[in-house]
């Protein structure tokens, strides 16, 4: 597997003295991997993503993104990275949706026909044709998020970096967004890094979860199931297991020990199986 991103014991100090140290363990993202970062408010998730994008420069440690140090040579790799930062409003720059989606390829000097094709493709894929000529300023949160994602996806990047993409978005749009990201991940083998406070989306989108504690320390890494079973670490990071995780933990307390499942389907299956088998038992007996 190819490592796209590698962060090793990186330290960053804000001018006001806030100091973040991403130690504990390496932060690694492989080709095609979907990584979710969880942690409390102010733990440094956004800071870490900014470091990856060369927006901030670390004072210590090692950062590699697509083989370069982003603080020095981000321009070399920026075409291969799609980005959606925490505040979408200020990332939608052009006064018309179509132009905004075309913003990056235009700046990268693509040819006109190529731009037209790329933009129309991504607009079709995201089903936002009806917004093409709209002024972004008046769109709803969900629409803006989609346009932002379109702008990030337009150059078919190898790596997508998204900071809290699900905030302010209604559940249906959120689901669509998750499906879309998973599709892109499958089709183009695009790696995805995202941060969120919405635990229930994590099992739907994450291959790997990183837990960041106050101050930046990376205290956990694993699949969603692994991570959500480490209760002390979670509470240290102000993270709660998704509702279903809590339910299974609660059931265990009451003496019912089932395999933890984090999606509704699996959970219903597990519970139904248990009950049905018990019923059969009692029927048989």
């Amino acid at each position, binding site marked *: 597997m190819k490592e796209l991103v590698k962060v090793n014991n990186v330290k960053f100090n804000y001018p006001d003295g806030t100091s973040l140290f991403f130690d504990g363990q390496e932060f690694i993202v492989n080709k095609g991997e979907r990584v979710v970062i969880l942690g409390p408010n102010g733990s440094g998730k956004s800071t870490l993503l900014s470091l990856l994008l060369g927006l901030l420069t670390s004072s210590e440690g090692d950062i590699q993104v697509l083989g370069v140090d982003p603080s020095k040579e981000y321009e070399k790799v920026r075409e291969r990275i799609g980005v959606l930062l925490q505040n979408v409003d200020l990332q939608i720059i052009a*006064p*018309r949706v179509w132009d905004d989606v075309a913003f990056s390829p235009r700046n990268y000097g693509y040819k006109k026909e190529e731009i037209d094709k790329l933009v129309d493709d991504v607009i079709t894929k995201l089903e936002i044709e009806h917004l093409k000529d709209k*002024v972004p*300023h008046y769109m709803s949160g969900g629409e803006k998020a989609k346009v932002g994602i379109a702008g990030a996806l337009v150059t078919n990047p190898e790596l997508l970096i998204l900071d809290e993409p699900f905030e302010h978005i209604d559940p249906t749009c959120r689901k669509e967004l998750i499906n879309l990201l998973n599709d892109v991940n499958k089709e183009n083998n695009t790696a995805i890094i995202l941060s969120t406070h919405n635990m229930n989306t994590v099992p739907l989108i994450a291959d790997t979860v990183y837990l960041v504690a106050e101050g930046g320390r990376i205290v956990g890494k694993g699949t969603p199931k692994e991570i959500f079973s480490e209760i002390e670490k979670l509470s240290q990071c102000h993270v709660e297991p998704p509702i279903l995780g809590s339910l299974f933990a609660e059931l265990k307390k009451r003496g019912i020990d089932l395999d933890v499942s984090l999606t509704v389907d699996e959970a219903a299956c597990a519970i139904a199986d248990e009950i049905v088998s018990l019923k059969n038992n009692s029927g048989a007996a």
Partner: protein
Amino acid sequence: MSHLHIPDGVLPGWLVMAGWILTAVILAFSIYRTRKTELKRKIPLIGIISALMIVCMTIPIVPIAYHINLSVIAGIILGPAVAFISIFIVDLIIAMFGHGGITVIGLNTMVVGTEAFIGFYLFQIFMALIGRDSIMWSSGLAAVIALIISTSILVGIIYASQINPEIIIGIEESNPTEATHDAHVPNELIKGVNVKSFAKTLLILLGIGWLLEGIITAFVIKYVSRVRPDLILPQRV
């Protein structure tokens, strides 16, 4: 850079005072004009435009030591009277940060306020003359001309500072022997300014700046007109 970045204590006192008095008069008039509209509504509006001007002054444009003022944009959007109040606030705050003399706030407000005033009216005239489709040209040209005029005023201030003989008083006593036969020489610090070469240097230095601010003004006004046309088209106080 039509802002006066002239240090405190260099310009003669009468000029500084004149700047303050003129500013006070215009300010009083502007406040009177805006009194008809609700104060509570105006304050946040002034606040945000002033803040925008201050923030833009903190983004230096790299190759030339220039920062944009947005004064013409403020004029076009706020109208000359409110823009003048806004500019006074900007000057006051940046002076607090040592970003220009505290005593020259009066003159500064005059110079930058002129930009907003001229910018506003030129924009209205151009729009009427060339038509509504020409919003970029109208605003860009208005900005460039306003800047040229305000810079001329700046040169004029420098020129004016050396023609009045009364300002020597402080200096001539500092060198009693020389001062006796040098009584009509202006402020020692400004004496011998070659206004022509001053103006020439300023022109070359600022030419690029004007052009840049004109272009930026044009793009910004175009952007605003596409996204929030209601902010530009109505006549404002």
